[in-house]
């Protein structure tokens, strides 16, 4: 059952003993949403426990976070294993999977789904115990969203579907743990927020002598010389200034933005660009986009497209211009670019390695060569 923010807050307010669950799936970053819920509840003197499964004791409410859609099995494992103490306890589900595909929980007993983000909870300082429960180096970061939403409506992206409003969190500075050396800003399109807001972030980071990582990539079309100059004041984590070259239509705009950043003095090693492939693109387009990053001296990160409703990671989606082997080899080629630097991708798939290590067949080579 879908619920509104006010109903979710009411559920939290009416519960004295709450269990927060991050299901058992692979992840690097801490569950920010749960960390904020913990603070919200503890400020109201509620008892809160954090686990990866339902514990054998009675709770008034169980909050389960979700991540990628293809981790759905881990989420359902939690829902199916409620144990004896909580067979009738209300379960509140939020996070990415719940926001994109709330209907998959329709049949689940006592399950309430909250889509998107809550402005009330977003203003809570994340609980340090949950935030520090990550491995090195991820425990050296403060994780924040200073703003939500994105004005773009890219077909391959989920942000505009779950973060419909543009909103700047007025309390974002309080979310930063000043005892940590690094800040990870996960705004989905920071460059599309005002220049004043970006300047404020830069000033704060510089004043507090922190290193920064813009995790979700800057939108190249919004990068100006002034913005590049401001950004150059920052100290970046390696590959911390992230961009995206997802579509061939951005050809020219992307290169111009990178040049502006480089000319402003941002080191090449601080930059990285996501390169989406296996969507509606052609392999040669994808190669051109990744190669352009490489020629500009920045690292391309090959991002394999999976449909937003993929519930099982083993069911591999193959884009209409791709083959499975071509997609896998393309990703390997760019991730291991240092090893294959003397060969183009076409030469690589024709090489002994391409054929023996990746099982490339003539059909894959033909697919690559096929004209658009």
């Amino acid at each position: 059952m879908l619920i509104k923010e006010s109903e979710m807050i009411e559920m939290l307010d009416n519960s004295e003993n709450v269990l927060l669950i991050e299901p058992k799936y692979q992840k690097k970053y801490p569950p920010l949403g749960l960390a904020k819920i913990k603070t919200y509840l503890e400020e109201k003197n509620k008892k809160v426990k954090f686990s990866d499964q339902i514990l054998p004791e009675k709770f008034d409410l169980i909050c389960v976070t979700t991540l990628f859609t293809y981790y759905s099995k881990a989420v359902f494992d939690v829902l199916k294993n409620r144990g004896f103490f909580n067979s009738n306890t209300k379960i509140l589900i939020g996070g990415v999977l719940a926001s994109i595909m709330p209907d998959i929980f329709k049949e689940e007993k006592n399950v309430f789904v909250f889509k998107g983000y809550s402005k009330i909870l977003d203003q809570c300082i994340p609980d340090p115990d949950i935030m520090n429960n990550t491995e090195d180096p991820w425990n050296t970061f403060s994780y924040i969203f200073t703003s939500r939403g994105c004005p773009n409506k890219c077909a391959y992206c989920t942000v505009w579907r779950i973060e419909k409003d543009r909103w700047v969190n007025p309390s974002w500075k309080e979310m930063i743990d000043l005892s940590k050396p690094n800040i990870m800003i996960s705004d989905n399109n920071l460059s599309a927020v005002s220049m004043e807001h970006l300047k404020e972030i830069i000033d704060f980071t510089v004043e507090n002598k922190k290193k920064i990582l813009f995790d979700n990539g800057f939108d190249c079309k919004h990068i100006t010389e002034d913005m590049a100059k401001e950004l150059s004041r920052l100290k970046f984590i390696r590959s911390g200034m992230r961009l995206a070259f997802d579509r061939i239509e951005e050809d020219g705009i992307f290169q111009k933005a990178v040049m502006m950043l480089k000319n402003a003095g941002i080191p090449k090693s601080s930059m990285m660009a996501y390169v989406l492939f296996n969507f509606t693109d052609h392999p040669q387009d994808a190669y051109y986009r990744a190669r352009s990053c490489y020629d500009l001296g920045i690292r391309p990160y090959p991002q394999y497209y999976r449909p937003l409703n993929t519930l099982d990671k083993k069911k591999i989606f193959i884009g209409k211009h791709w083959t499975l082997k071509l997609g896998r080899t393309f990703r390997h080629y760019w991730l291991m670019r240092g090893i294959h630097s003397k060969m183009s991708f076409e030469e690589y798939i024709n090489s002994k390695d391409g054929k023996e290590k990746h099982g490339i067949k003539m059909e894959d080579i033909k697919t690559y060569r096929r004209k658009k």
Partner: protein
Amino acid sequence: MKRTDLLKILEIVKPGIAGNTKIESMSYFFFSGKEVVSYNDKISIQHKLKTDFKMFVKANDLYSLVSRLKSDELKMKEEKGKLLIKTESTKASFSTISDDEVESRVKNVSKSLKKAKWEKLPDDFCNSISLCSFAAEKEQKNTLGCVYVTDKNCMASDNKRVAFAKMSEKVEDMFILATEIKSLINTAPVKYAITKSWLHFKNKEGCVFSIRKVTGEFPDFLQFFDFKGTVVDLPKEIIDGIDIASIIISDIEPMITVNIKNKVLLINVKSESGKITHKTKVDYDGEEVQFSINPSFLKEMMTYSSKITIADDKMKLETSNFSLLTSLYV
């Protein structure tokens, strides 16, 4: 000494040898002069064996040799820091190591045994802990990873099912790591003692199996056994199904799945060897019920009772001595 006697002792002690360990000597047998001992921090097993030497010998090498030798008699002695084993036809010498740290830990276990007050175990102790152990959450090292013994009660739960057995006599409270129960039962313990950090079990031959103590609380699962539901008579034919399924059941984790739907009871088992399904008619036409159970447990229960009670969210099998409660969300 007789080769088969030594082999039997090594077989008993072997479960205490660590598989993957950073501490080399934990994968070695320790000959203390009075006993042969295995120690891996979780368990320690010591069996009486008088020797003229004190040393650590690589467990797998020694065990493999003794099991492959053909002679009835063998001689063991220390020579220039090595363990020499001689039979009529074979002469073998094994490198040995010394490890003061592990030796002192073994000594600590032995020391605690001196103060131990041995009590008799009920005759049905081994059967009870064995039957309950399948319901424990074996990946856990906390109380849910154990069989909990308190008074005459013996129980285990992974929070999805609860196995309960009533023993004939009382014992002191203890949590026994479920992963160690199979090896413990193989030693056929008849007495127990509880010291500060260890649970000790002794068999008739004086072999001592020590398991590190787990402390904590066990959730009160017994409250959930009391509920009303539809009572279903399980057909006796399912014993045949269990026997047939047993052909391919894994020894390590024996488990069958029982599914009841549309008046049909299916016993399913899947292992590396293959898959078996056994079908029996049953007088139940309600919501589909599915549960996993240790086949020995179900068979044992079927000898006492053939009734199960099904409610919306749980199901129980109950006899005078054994009960199983399963959450039906699974």
